[in-house]
């Protein structure tokens, strides 16, 4: 008898961060349409819609034709039809994030998941949250280099680092007063 060890801990979490993955079946013949819609998201230098969800560290949509078949595995093991992979690395819990995704990004989620079999029509709101939850793939192991740092914190410490670096370059040319004034203005007291 096998003990399901993954049940002992939540593989979808690492520190305060969560991993979400949904694998949704694509309607017959819709792969290229879906690809085109995804590539049009934030095309050029426009911002990705995911930028509107400030809890998102990383996110991706991948159109997957099928599983990999290796000659040694004795025949293909197929997904049945092409699937859309959606994954994200986020701050906090999954449920509230998905609610935000399906509300804030409704114009985009409608465009994307309309290509998927039996997705709600329109693909948005609580119905879409349920659909994504139904198609969720649990993560076995989730790794983060900075598991307890939110997107906002990442951005803050990066800004601070850049400001301090710029100040350090100029420091030999500044008087003590100027140095202190610029430190307070650019790096910030607390």
């Amino acid at each position, binding site marked *: 008898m096998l003990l399901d*060890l*993954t049940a*002992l*801990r939540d593989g979808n979490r690492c520190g305060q*961060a969560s991993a979400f*993955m949904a694998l949704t*079946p694509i309607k017959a013949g819709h792969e290229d349409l879906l*690809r085109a819609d*995804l*590539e049009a998201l*934030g095309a050029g230098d426009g911002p*990705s819609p*995911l930028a509107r969800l400030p809890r998102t*560290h*990383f*996110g*991706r*949509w*991948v159109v*997957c034709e099928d*599983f*990999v*078949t*290796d000659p040694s*595995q004795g*025949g293909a093991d*197929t*997904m049945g*039809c092409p699937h859309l*992979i959606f*994954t994200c*690395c986020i701050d906090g819990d999954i449920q509230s994030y998905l609610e935000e995704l399906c509300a804030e990004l409704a114009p985009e989620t409608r465009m994307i998941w309309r290509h998927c*079999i039996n997705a709600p029509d329109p693909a948005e709101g609580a119905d879409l949250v349920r*659909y994504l939850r*139904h198609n969720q*793939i649990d*993560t*076995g*192991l*989730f*790794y*983060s*280099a*900075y598991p307890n*740092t939110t997107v906002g914190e*990442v951005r803050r*410490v*990066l800004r601070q*680092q850049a400001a*301090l670096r710029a100040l*350090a370059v100029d420091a030999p040319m500044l008087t*003590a*007063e100027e*140095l*202190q004034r610029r*430190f*307070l203005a650019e*790096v910030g*007291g*607390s």
Partner: protein
Amino acid sequence: MNATASLTTPTTATGTRPGNRDGYAIAITVFSTVKWWGRAALPVVFTVPKIAPQTISTLQRLSFIHFARWSLIREIPYNGAPQPEIKLRHPHLYFESNFNGGWEEYIDAFSHILTRGMWLFWGSSYGFPKALPTGPFKAYIKANEMEASHFYSAYPQATATQITRALELDELLADLRARAADMPPDEFAAAFGTLMAEAQRCC
């Protein structure tokens, strides 16, 4: 235009396809088919602290991965007709990484440094070559990697190392930040020098 260039597939600066990039961030997405014994072994690898964490701490030291994940897919979620109902014969391993640096360097590092860790995670996958030599291993990843249609990073200009260093710097800075406003300028300048001497690896 160079006539011979049309003989190649477009790759980016880092050897990956354009869809897998956002600034300095690169996405890797791969599936592999897992042998029967991986069904039991992988959950152990994912969970038992003595096995994976060594790999995890090496990942931390290599410091080019922001986030990575491994998932074992045992069944395909079913949504009713017309989706074909599928019974999988094998589990499938999903791996994704959000990293920075060159694709080649990334795979090299995996091969040369995580040699054992790689075997732990992928030794139970069909067709997976050993991590060394790197040639067949790279070919395997190239052949099985999927290109993202959309990839997003909240801080595309930042690397994982920069972020961990910026967090270290934040701790070092806390004290001076708290006192800076109340210090006489000369004392501040001296404290600034001391801080920079301490913080030079993070700034």
